[in-house]
């Protein structure tokens, strides 16, 4: 790896936030730099920064312009972002159970038809994936995953659904997702997980963090019902694998 990395772009997001953009596209290398800068800021905070929001390709840095100005902050961020990446820390891995198809994955058959294969084959390809939480956004716990098998890339639905259920496991474009709360979505719904990536009175409230690894495994719909009740009562259900 080169001693220094090309600088990101600093894009003003108003007077109290700056977007540190490493790439315009979805790109795991850029995402690693986003998360590395986020970690570096957590380890040695810059006075005036109030909150950071990592996304696929950029880090949104909220700050108080009463404490630090755009230029001074930008200089510090660029200096940090040009540092070589630290050796990759061992990522946490979550094994997430999914009830595929039927009422829980109403698009599974259509996806199979569109890709000229069987629902079982779609499940097999989805389960075989090794995913990474690239970002969390939109609604609490909505985890955007990179690492979707290329053969499953397909455009989003023409018209988004206004309601998709809590726990939906879906794919959209080149992304996969774990959705926690019921929300509108234009993605293809493959199944549902009983796992809550966000649950208010549980410790931890938020299960997944950007950078975590994720794999899925299939469960039957009866197991889903049982685990869903346990999850509602506060059980984490997802298995954490210490590699």
């Amino acid at each position, binding site marked *: 790896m080169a001693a220094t990395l090309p600088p990101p772009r600093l894009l003003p997001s108003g007077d109290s936030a700056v977007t540190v953009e490493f790439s315009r*596209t979805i790109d795991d290398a850029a995402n690693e730099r986003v998360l590395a800068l986020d970690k570096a800021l957590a380890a040695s905070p810059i006075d005036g920064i109030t909150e950071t929001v990592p996304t696929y390709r950029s880090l949104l840095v*909220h700050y108080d312009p009463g404490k630090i100005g755009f230029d001074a902050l930008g200089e510090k961020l660029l200096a940090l972002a040009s540092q070589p990446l630290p050796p990759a820390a061992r990522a946490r891995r979550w094994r997430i159970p999914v009830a595929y198809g039927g009422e829980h994955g109403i698009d599974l058959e259509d996806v199979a038809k569109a890709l000229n294969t069987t629902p079982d084959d779609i499940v097999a390809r989805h389960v075989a994936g090794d995913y990474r939480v690239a970002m969390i956004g939109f609604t609490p*716990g909505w985890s955007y995953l990179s690492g979707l098998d290329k053969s499953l890339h397909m455009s989003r639905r023409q018209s988004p659904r206004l309601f998709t259920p809590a726990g939906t496991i879906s794919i959209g474009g080149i992304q996969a997702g774990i959705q926690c709360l019921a929300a509108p979505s234009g993605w293809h719904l493959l199944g549902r997980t009983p796992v809550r990536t966000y649950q208010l009175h549980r410790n931890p409230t938020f299960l997944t963090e950007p950078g975590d690894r994720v794999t899925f495994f299939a469960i039957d719909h009866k197991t889903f019902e049982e685990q869903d009740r346990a999850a509602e009562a506060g059980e984490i259900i997802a298995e954490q694998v210490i590699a």
Partner: protein
Amino acid sequence: MSRLVIASIGPASSVQDGGRHGAQRYGLTVSGAMDRLSLAAANTLVGNEPFAAVVEIGPFGATFTAKDGAVRVAIAGAPRNADVAGKPVAMDTSVTLKDGEALTLGFARGGAFTYLAIEGGIKGEPVFGSLAVNARAGLGSPYPRPLQAGDEFTVDAASGAPELRIELPKPASGPIRVLLGPQDDEFDDANKALFLDSEWKISATSDRMGYRLEGPAIKHLHGHNIVSDGTVNGSIQVPGNGAPIALMMDRGTSGGYPKIATVITADVGRLAQTSAGTAFRFLEVTMAEAQEEARKFAQLIRNLPDRLRSSDTVELNIEALSDANVAGYAVSAVDAGTWQVTAEP
């Protein structure tokens, strides 16, 4: 303890405060008051912290009744007719409701949101330091949803402190100031100019999540899909149909449409208080100007206690008030015997 009971209230009314910060990285919406200056002014009038939880009242009327004792409250924000037991109450003042008395607020005359602060604050269970309602995530306390008739707050008994008014600076008029970006390079010069030079109106379908803007269609250079990135209060995104949306306090934490510009911090509340259908323009400012305005805005809020005055120095002349309002003007008391009359923005 007293109670403050909501006898009636319109839609788009909820408990709000300074917002829920620190968990946008997990997708948790910030929420909070649409107009932070009015939030802080109402709280300051009753001796609360500036960003304490209040009742944010949408454009329709509302009535609050004191029970089991007296309750001291204050109102600020979008102007409306207000009275207690038939006696008018001016905006930007505190008032004590005796046990059984009701504060009745009319429709907002210009603007949208009026803030009712309660002495001693609203009691509830904060999540991430906030009582603000975020209905989609089921958050907010004591009611994790918009308020409705019959809801009530357990509140401190009124202190008996003398009533106050707060002398706020004359509201700025003129264009809503913006900084271009973060994705202004997704638009060519002609479309940036179209955005900055056109007259806009806020659509009636707007809400706390976003204000939809009606005006010319803004075209993208490379299509409307970008890889999702972070949003802020006041981000102006342009979806596929070219009709910009200014993201407000209940915005998603990330979004996948190019953001042509961002409303400066000092003007977000002013945009929030621009009524649907009212024509307005944007004005591009420099980062230095925007940050100076943000610092001044923060200082204004910090120094609000210096603007408190005894309320008995104002004699309300309700006839002059209603005459002017009938003529379509927004009126507020400035000083003893004088009126500030401005055409609604």
